[in-house]
């Protein structure tokens, strides 16, 4: 068994997360049964789709309690895209829905303006890269596909983009939690730097 587990709650693009770890030579397993979570040192929660249906899946399959347990035991955890958003307290996508609440704040629709919504494409990031990966530089760019974004109500280590005049959080590092609004698994060489850091995180 490997030490990276990818949560399969029946939604999202798991193949690309798995092949991205394969490409940098870290083994990982898909976790379909919540009871297996405790076997893994590192957990990844990917997500594509809408907030309410993802939360429903996490509860129904028993993942929510196990994810919170994993995070509280200080083991490395990575949330990607919707897998980042569900870490927050609530979202108003379609209807007001409670999240896992391990990060403080809420999820809302991106602000409208010159940049169209959804936000699809590559961005460079603002902020202090050091706590995310020692390999990152100004030349790194990351791939986003999203319509909603996280608004933390607490001061976390973040990287952000300037979206229609609003600073939009792109990445959060808080203790053992790494949360990415963009897709590190799709961000080629730049994304590999983050996946490598995570695979080596203690």
């Amino acid at each position, binding site marked *: 068994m490997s030490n990276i587990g990818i949560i399969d709650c029946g939604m999202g693009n798991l*193949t690309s997360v798995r092949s991205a770890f394969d490409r940098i030579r870290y083994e990982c397993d898909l976790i379909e049964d919540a009871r297996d979570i405790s076997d893994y040192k590192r957990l990844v929660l990917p997500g594509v789709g809408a907030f309410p249906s993802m939360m429903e899946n996490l509860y129904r399959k028993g993942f929510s309690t196990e994810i919170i347990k994993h995070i509280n035991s200080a083991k490395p955890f990575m949330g990607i895209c919707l897998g980042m958003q569900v870490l927050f307290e609530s979202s108003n996508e379609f209807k007001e829905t409670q999240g896992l609440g391990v990060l403080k704040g809420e999820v809302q629709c991106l602000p409208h303006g010159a940049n169209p919504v959804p*936000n699809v*494409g590559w961005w460079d990031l603002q902020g202090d890269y050091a706590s995310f990966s020692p390999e990152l530089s100004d030349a*790194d760019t990351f791939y986003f596909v999203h*319509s909603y974004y996280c608004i933390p109500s607490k001061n976390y280590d973040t990287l952000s983009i*300037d979206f229609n005049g609003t600073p939009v959080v792109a990445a959060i590092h808080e203790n053992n939690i790494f949360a990415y609004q963009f897709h590190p698994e799709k961000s080629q060489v730049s994304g590999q730097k983050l996946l490598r850091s995570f695979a080596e995180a203690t």
Partner: protein
Amino acid sequence: MSKKFRIIPTVQFKNGSVVKSINYQNHRIVGDIASTIRVYSRRQADELVFYNLDTLDGSQINWATISSCVQNSNMPLTYGGGIRSVDVANTLIGSGFDKISFNTVLFEDPNIIYQTSKLIGSSSTVATVDLHFMEGRLCMFSNGGQRYQKEFKPMETIKLLEELGVGELVINCIDRDGLMNGYDFENIGTIPSIAKIPVLLSGGCSGVECIQEAYEHGFDGAMMSSIFLWQGDSIPSLKDALFEKVPIRRVVQ
């Protein structure tokens, strides 16, 4: 710090090979799928759009082809061709595509687009709008350019697609396909200012100047394939030439 303009290669697939057409006809074999995808991956294309033409005769999707496409790619991938159910759309996302693109189903059962967008999210739901400039106006086509949808008007159809939850548009000009004579800005140049969602354009790319013009018109990205096949351009050569004119993403090592 800003959003980057996307340079997106298109790959058309038919009868086991990568093909290239002119005006959606006379498809010529230009390579095999695995090596084509590997080349674009190595050059770190910003995205790749894959059109499966085998489904045009009603054939089912060949999952071995899908898998070969995904396995050899490190790029964000969009799939188009023969998606006629929410289940198939969802399976494509699960098998490694980031976005799926609808075309013909809009004219058959638009509710499938709406349901798919609700399930996988609008940001993963794309529509390819096939246009042909003829008799002095833009005409809508479906079924890989084979069927004229006379009663549909392009600008109204774009609004309809947005209402159905589509999160990105590919505007393609069939009459420019494969000709490398420039994008049709005269007829489609205003679409980004009309649409609320990101708009990509395709059909006729002739190289650096017309990509720069696409950026200036407010498109989110430019799609092309012939210039890579017949004109000796490559992703790095385009990006080197566009650098400082258009906010493009430089390839990092």
